[in-house]
């Protein structure tokens, strides 16, 4: 099974990268670009085939390593191959 974890800054936390990308897009002449946020997308191959168990284990990975919940949120998507 494949898991995709999207880690992003919590709302209200400054995202300097997103801010700089937004500025550069504007400088490049792209109009109508509002807020830009940059997050991480971590893709994992899991041996686990049970969706419930896989989600639980990935949640634990997020809490322990993949995200710092002080400033980041995470969202998990599971995909069967």
């Amino acid at each position, binding site marked *: 099974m494949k898991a995709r974890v999207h880690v992003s800054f919590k709302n209200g936390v400054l995202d300097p990268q997103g801010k*700089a990308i937004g500025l550069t897009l504007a400088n490049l002449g792209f109009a109508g670009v509002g807020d830009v946020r940059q997050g991480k997308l971590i893709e994992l191959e899991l041996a686990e085939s049970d969706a419930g168990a896989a989600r639980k284990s990935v949640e634990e990975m997020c809490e322990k390593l993949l995200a710092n919940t002080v400033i980041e949120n995470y969202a998990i998507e599971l995909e069967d191959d």
Partner: protein
Amino acid sequence: MKACVVVFPGSNCDRDVQVALSNVIGGPVEMVWHGDSEMAATDLIVLPGGFSYGDYLRSGAMSARSPVMREIIARAERGVAVLGICNGFQVLTEAGLLPGALLPNAGLKFVCRDVRVRVENSQTPFTNSYEQGQVLSIPVAHHDGQYFAEPHTLDAMRTGDQIAFRYDDDNPNGSLDDIAGIFNQRKTVLGLMPHPERAADALHGGTDGRGLLQSLVAALA
């Protein structure tokens, strides 16, 4: 010889290279602001080290799209010498003036230390004061210095003598083929990760980097 240093928002080795270069040239070196699309006639354009745009998104990515880069690309096509150091090297690859790309260091950490680099081609405007194969001690200081290129690109660079410097014994960032610096095909553009301007003065603890600047003066004066 006339030289200029381009200043991007977040460049931080602009002054360092300006000082080192003007010491070697014995005259002033002009600073050019990234937002200017006009640039006086010059024999050498230097893209300095630093964290332009904070190295956000990808190192060098945003600077490579600055207004001044259009002019620099045009000059480079006309054969004006362009030197990119560290972040400048990253900008040159992002702008397509040099092949390949610079990825985050294999160790995933910033690395600042003296490294030994070997001169792989001493027959260029940038390296004529060195011996072929000479090993230099020059500091690196970067987070994204892992050189990468597709196999066919790398082959072409090897055959074209485009590899300027290789790490001699200690590859600090996992660069492909130990590459520390490369030329364009015509040897008019050089990008390298080590900082010659930080080994240009006896008080730096070594002056091996000075030769690069002296080569340019010899070739372009």
